[in-house]
């Protein structure tokens, strides 16, 4: 043991501290890390070069370290019965899943259950999960289900609360179902009265703005859609010479991100996607107003917005290209990352108010909830066709337990699902400008509790929201069709959507 473990640790820690306080250069830091024999691990990545907004795990304790004793005992004893089982979970690379993938071995340490997390892009998750349920193959034990698919997969998942109550032998002590944020359970996980899974991820629209730029030009933080437009134009006019745009959009044609932007624009202008009679409402007066508002924003956004998804939008924000964005809260920790050009310059704010008033749930269709905070949450669902259902169920309870969920939040700075995580002292301690910051979470919690919106719950929605609607929107926004007329585009979408709904006999 030449270079003693202890020495190594102190050396790393010292180097890191030195680097953090800019006493040594990056290169010197990397050299020292190399000397320490760890190469460039997560730590140096966190310090040096990140693309992921949430990727700032910091140095926190082991995930299981603070797990209550009764839960540890449960995992060891009950989970231990399924030692050797291998369960599989397919998911998009959302922040909680990525963290979960990193810490899953701690679960294996306790139970002996092997966990495989298959991370693939969003639509592949859909296709793979669809294939799995179509053939009832049982390839996956756990599904990642985007909220827009919940209706589709409702029949294929086991209701977790029912399972918890009906099978006390496998129920994790102290799980505390009531701790889950009520709007999330209702808005994300429940379909037709059935709980399809456990809320697992909740990116939600909030307003984010460049404090420095707004102050520089004496512009107040916008609170509604009209003010947002005005502020975006003003900044664009003043800063375009510096390559700074008013806003940045995730307007990639044919992509779900565009649909999200559009949906929020429609809701914010008093519209909705569907009417109670299940016809498409995007082409009514409010809907068109919303779309026209969005078209106008494109003129002050980087032209590349029409090729950008959330990924591109985040790059615009992180590189300092845009000043005002209403988008996913989960970008926020990345904006405070060390490699961000705008560290500490962004501030979160409540989502924009609607000056015309929102449409009520009863005025919309398919369980759609028009509101100010568009969410793209997802749930973890337990497959009804799983061949290792018990083992998977135990893993699901571990992954969704208070402590582990809090740990995930701590690791990535993204919004938690549980009230207790929001209140956790460790989480609160990170509410400052730092990698993996949680300083936006107050706003996020307010948004979830008060103005969280939900897209329609309907089996066709997965297709409509990722194909038909954003494709036609893309035609409009990139000038392929409709000659810039929002009305023409929305009428065309209405025709397509209505015929699909009719065809499906919904």
């Amino acid at each position: 043991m030449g270079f003693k473990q202890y020495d190594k640790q102190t050396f790393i820690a010292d180097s890191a501290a030195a680097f953090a306080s800019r006493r040594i250069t990056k290169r010197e830091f990397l050299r020292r890390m190399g000397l320490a024999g760890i190469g460039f691990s997560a730590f140096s990545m966190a310090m040096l070069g990140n693309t992921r907004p949430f990727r700032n795990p910091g140095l926190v304790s082991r995930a299981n370290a603070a797990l209550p004793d009764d839960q540890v005992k449960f995992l060891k004893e009950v989970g231990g019965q399924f030692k050797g089982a291998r369960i599989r979970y397919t998911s998009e690379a959302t922040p909680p899943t990525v963290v979960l993938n990193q810490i899953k071995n701690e679960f294996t340490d306790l139970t002996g259950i092997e966990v495989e997390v298959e991370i693939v892009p969003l639509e592949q998750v859909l296709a793979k999960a669809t294939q799995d349920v179509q053939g009832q193959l049982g390839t996956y034990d756990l599904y990642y289900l985007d909220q827009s698919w919940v209706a589709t997969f409702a029949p294929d998942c086991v209701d977790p609360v029912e399972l918890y109550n009906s099978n006390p032998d496998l129920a994790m002590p102290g799980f505390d179902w009531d701790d889950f944020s009520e709007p999330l359970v209702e808005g994300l996980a429940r379909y037709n009265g059935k709980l399809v899974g456990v809320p697992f991820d909740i990116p939600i629209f909030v307003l984010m703005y460049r404090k420095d730029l707004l102050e520089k030009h004496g512009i107040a933080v916008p609170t509604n859609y009209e003010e947002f437009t005005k502020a975006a134009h003003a900044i664009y006019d003043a800063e375009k010479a510096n390559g700074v745009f008013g806003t940045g959009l995730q307007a990639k044609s044919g992509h779900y991100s565009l649909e999200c932007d559009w949906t929020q624009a429609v809701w914010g202008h008093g519209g909705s996607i569907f009417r109670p009679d299940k016809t498409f409402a995007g082409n009514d007066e409010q809907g068109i107003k919303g779309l026209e508002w969005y078209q106008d924003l494109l003129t002050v956004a980087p032209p590349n917005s029409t090729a950008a998804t959330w990924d591109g939008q985040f790059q615009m924000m992180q590189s300092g290209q845009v000043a005002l964005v209403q988008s996913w809260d989960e970008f926020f920790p990345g904006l405070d990352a060390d490699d961000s050009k705008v560290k500490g310059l962004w501030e979160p704010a409540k989502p924009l108010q609607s000056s015309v008033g929102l449409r009520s749930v009863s005025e919309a269709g398919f369980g759609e909830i028009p509101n100010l905070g568009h969410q793209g949450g997802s749930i973890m669902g337990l497959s009804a066709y799983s061949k290792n259902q018990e083992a998977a169920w135990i893993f699901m309870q571990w992954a969704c337990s208070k402590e582990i969920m809090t740990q995930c939040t701590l690791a990535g700075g993204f919004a938690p699902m549980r009230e207790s995580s929001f209140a956790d002292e460790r989480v609160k301690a990170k509410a400052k400008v730092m990698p993996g910051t949680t300083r936006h979470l107050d706003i996020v919690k307010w948004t979830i509790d008060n103005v969280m919106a939900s897209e329609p719950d309907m089996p066709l929605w997965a297709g409509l929201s990722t194909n038909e609607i954003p494709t036609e929107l893309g035609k409009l926004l990139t000038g392929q069709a409709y000659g810039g007329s929002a009305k023409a585009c929305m009428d065309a979408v209405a025709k397509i959507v209505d015929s699909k709904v009719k065809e499906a006999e919904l």
Partner: protein
Amino acid sequence: MAERMEISIAGDGSMRRPGRLNLRHILSSEHPLPWLFPVTAVLIAFGVYPLLYALWLSLHKRNPVTRLSVFDPDWNWVKILGDERVWNAIGNTYLYTGIAIFVELVLGLAIALLLDSDRKGYGVLRALMTLPLVVPPAVTGMMFLLMLDGSFGVLSRTLYALGLWSPAYPILATSSTALFGILLADIWQWTPFMVLIMMAGLRALPKEPFEAAAIDGASATQAFFRLTLPMLSRIIALAVLIRGVDLFRIYDYIKVMTEGGPGTATETLTAYAGTIYFKNADFPYASTIALLTLILLLITSAMFIKIFKVRF
């Protein structure tokens, strides 16, 4: 006769009577069957069944709510005829295939002529030229996505700086140019393939006709158009066929770079099939589009083979 060596080649020999079913003969190496068995087995096991299944799927109507498929042979095939996006995709497919083949062929031939030299260093250049071929197409797509990024891409930025392009129209985000952005990736990756083929063609050309032409006073240009091109015509036709088949089924680049967008500006048949498959999970309809692609490809290539008398 002293040097004559005694030898007797005995042997009853294998009987080779035509038209008689002789198991021993069929299973011997004299019969084609054992030779063709491995390929046939692979194709039947993994090729025939999936295709028949796809056909079977295309004859079903899928209910997105119940997820049940009911036999309704006309449903998808009637739907496909009335689907504007299919017609748009057919147009895009042919456009994409046509442009890519033309450009890759012309460039490939030109570069092959340029690099066809025995002088020192040209071997290295030729080897480098093959490099793009080994990049996975999905990665090529990402590579060009990054380089063509309207805000940060090196190619976009260079074009802006040279005043050749306006930042207001990002190549991949503008419906009239997106297809060319994808073509750029395709051309980058596959022109080297054409270079290889054309190089082989050039190297195999006989010298005499060129010497004769030079004596007849033909210029280099004349010799190229009157001799080189006609003599390469067969290999060109074959190259076009091979490349065309792959281009017609183009998927990776489009998927990675534009997903068929903006709007439907770059949506080819396979891209559309992919969209229906992945996003709408309408497997029967996706199968129908994929089969339509296959049918069009078979017809097109059969016509091509006939017209240009391609031999393989």
